[in-house]
C-alpha cells in the first residue's frame, strides 16, 4: 500500500513516507478479512471437486455361460459400454490371417490400447473371448456389432455409425477409417472359464486403465 505524497509537506518527512498506525491497522484488518473469506471459501470450492465414487471402481462380474459362439453382449463398467464377444474358431483363424492384417492400421497392437497381458494376436486373455470398451477412438460414438453374414468368406466386424470407422473382431481399426487407435481393452480377469471380472488385473499384473492412449 502506498501512501499518497502530500505536496504541502517537505519530502523526506516521516509522516509522508512511513505508513501510519491507522494504515497498518487498516492493512491488518484487510488481510484478516481476506484470509477469513478465503478460509470460508474452502468448503464451497471443495464441494466442486469431481466425485470419484468408490462404488464405480468396484470390479464388475459378468456371467458368460449364456453367451453362444458368434454372439456379443454389452455390459457397463465405470459408466462405459463394454463389448464381450465370443469368437468362433473360423473367426479366430481369420484374425491370424497375415493378408488381412495388412489392411489394419495397428495389427500388432503397438499403441497402448490394451493391458500388456492382452497384447497378442487375439487382444485378450483367452482367445475365445474378446473384451473391448465400446467407444470409438475417433469421436466417442458406440460402434455397432455386425454379425457375420451367411455368404462364405464374410466375417463380422464393428462399424461406427458416426463416421464409418471399422474395427475387426479383435477391436483393431481398419486402414482408411477416421479412428486413429484400436478399441481399448479394459483390465479384466477370468476367475472361471465362464465368468469375467472387469476392472481387476490378473495376479502379478499391474495395469492402470487411465494410462491408455485414448478412449
Amino acid at each position, binding site marked *: 500500500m502506498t501512501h*499518497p505524497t502530500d505536496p504541502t509537506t517537505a519530502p523526506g518527512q516521516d509522516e509522508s513516507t512511513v505508513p501510519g498506525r491507522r494504515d497498518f491497522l487498516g492493512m491488518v484488518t484487510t488481510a484478516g478479512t481476506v484470509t477469513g473469506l478465503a478460509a470460508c471459501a474452502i*468448503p*464451497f*470450492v*471443495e*464441494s*466442486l471437486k469431481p*466425485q470419484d*465414487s468408490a462404488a464405480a471402481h468396484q470390479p464388475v462380474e459378468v456371467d458368460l455361460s449364456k453367451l453362444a459362439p458368434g454372439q456379443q453382449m454389452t455390459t457397463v463398467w465405470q459408466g462405459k459400454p463394454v463389448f464381450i464377444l465370443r469368437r468362433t474358431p473360423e473367426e479366430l483363424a481369420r484374425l491370424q490371417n497375415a493378408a488381412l492384417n495388412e489392411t489394419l492400421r495397428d495389427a500388432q497392437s503397438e499403441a497402448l490400447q490394451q493391458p500388456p497381458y492382452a497384447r497378442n494376436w487375439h487382444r485378450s486373455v483367452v482367445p475365445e473371448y474378446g473384451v473391448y470398451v465400446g467407444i470409438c477412438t475417433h469421436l466417442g460414438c458406440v460402434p455397432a456389432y455386425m454379425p457375420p453374414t451367411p455368404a462364405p468368406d464374410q466375417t463380422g466386424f464393428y462399424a461406427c455409425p458416426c463416421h464409418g470407422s471399422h474395427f475387426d473382431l479383435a477391436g483393431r481399426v481398419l486402414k482408411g477409417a477416421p479412428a486413429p487407435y484400436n478399441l481399448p481393452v479394459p483390465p479384466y480377469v477370468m476367475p472361471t472359464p465362464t465368468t469375467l471380472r472387469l476392472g481387476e488385473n490378473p495376479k502379478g499384473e499391474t495395469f492402470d486403465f487411465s494410462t491408455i492412449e485414448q478412449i
Partner: protein
Amino acid sequence: MKHPETQDHTSAPAAFSGGFAGWMEQRLPIFSAFRKEYVDFPMPRNLNWLWNFGAILVVVLLLMLATGTFLAMNYTPTSAEAFFSTEAIDRQLSGGWLLRGMHVTGASLFLAALYIHLFRGLYYGSYKAPRELLWLSGLVLLVMVMGTAFAGYVLPWGQMSYWGADVMTKAVGAIPVVGSALEHVLTGGDHLGDVFLHRVFVLHFIMAFLVVGVVGLHVACVHITKSGNPLGREPKGPQDTLPFHPYYTSKDLIGLIVFAMVFSALLFFWPGLLTEPANYAPADPLHTPADIEPEWYFLPFYGLLQSVPSKFGGLLAAASAILVLFALPWLDQSPVRSARFRPACRLGLAGLVMAFILLAAVGKHHATGEWMLIGRLAGLYYFGFFLVLLPLVSRREKAQLQAASPTTSEGDA
C-alpha cells in the same frame, strides 16, 4: 477522537470527477451513491447492540444463498432420492457436511436474529410514523422467511420433513370452502410424493431470491426514513449523528464476530441443539414418529394452533398472530416511540415476550391438561396486548401529553 472526514478524498462529489470514477459518475453514479448511503450516511450516535441484527441478517442471508446454491447442485428432489442425496452431501461430498451444517445453523439463527430484530422494532417503536412501510416490509420478510424455512425443512425428506409437510397441507385443507382444492394443488396429487417435493424445492429456491428483493426494499425504506434509535427522538442535527463508516461498520463488524462465535459454537460443538434426530430417518408414509413437533421457531404458532379446539380456528389464531402485527402502526397511536418512556407499555411487552415463550412451551408439550390452560391464557394475552392494552395505553399517554404541553404534543416526543 478526530473525525476522519478530512482525508485525501473529500466527501464532495468532486472526488468522482476524473478517471474511471468520473466516467461512471456521469452515466451511473453508483460510487457517489455508495458513499452517500454507506460511508457518509448519518446514523444516530446512541444506537445500542440491538441495532446490530440488521447487518447480521444480511450477512446470514448471503451465507444462506451461497450454501444453498452449492447444496442444490448436489440435491435430488425426488421422494426416492431426496433423503439419500442429503445423506450423500453429509457423508460423501467434499466439504458437504460443512455446507449443510452452515445452511441448517444459518436457518435457525436467521429466525432467531429475525425475532430479536422484530422485538427491537416493537420495543423502540420502530413501526411508528414515518417508518410504517419499513415495519410492513419487515413483516412481509418475516412471513416469506417462515415460508422459505418451512419449505427448506421439507427438502431432506426425513420423517419430520414428511410429517411436518403432512400436517401443514392438512391444515391448509381445513380452510373452509377453498381448503380441499388448495390442499390438492399444494400436494400436486393424492399423496405427498415427487410432485409435491419438486414444487417445494422450486418454491424454496424462488422464495430465497424474492427475500433478497424485499430486503432491498426494506433497506431502501431505512435509508429514506433513517435509522430509529433507543430514545425514539429523531436526531436534531449533525451533533446527534455519526457517519456510517467507520463508526457503524466497525460496530456491525464486532456484532458479526460475536454472532459468528455463537454460530460456530452451535455448528461445531452443539449441532444436536438445532437438529431433530427423527429427521435422520427416511420419510415413511406408513409410520408417524411418536413426538412430532416443528422447528423451534414455529413452536409459539404451533402452541397457538393446538390451544384452539377447532381445526380451522387454530389455523386462524396462528395466522392472526402475525397478521395483527401488520396493524400495529395503527393500533398504537401514542406519539412516544421508545418503550423506555412508556412504563405501562414496557411491562406489557415483558408480558408479551413471556406469553410468546409460554406458547412455544405449549407447542413443545402438546396442549393437553394444564398446558392447554396455559396456552389459552398466553394466547389471550398475546392478542389482548395488541388489540386492547396497547390502544388503551396509547390513548392515555396521548391525553397525558396533551395535558402537559398542548402545543408540542404532536411533534417528536
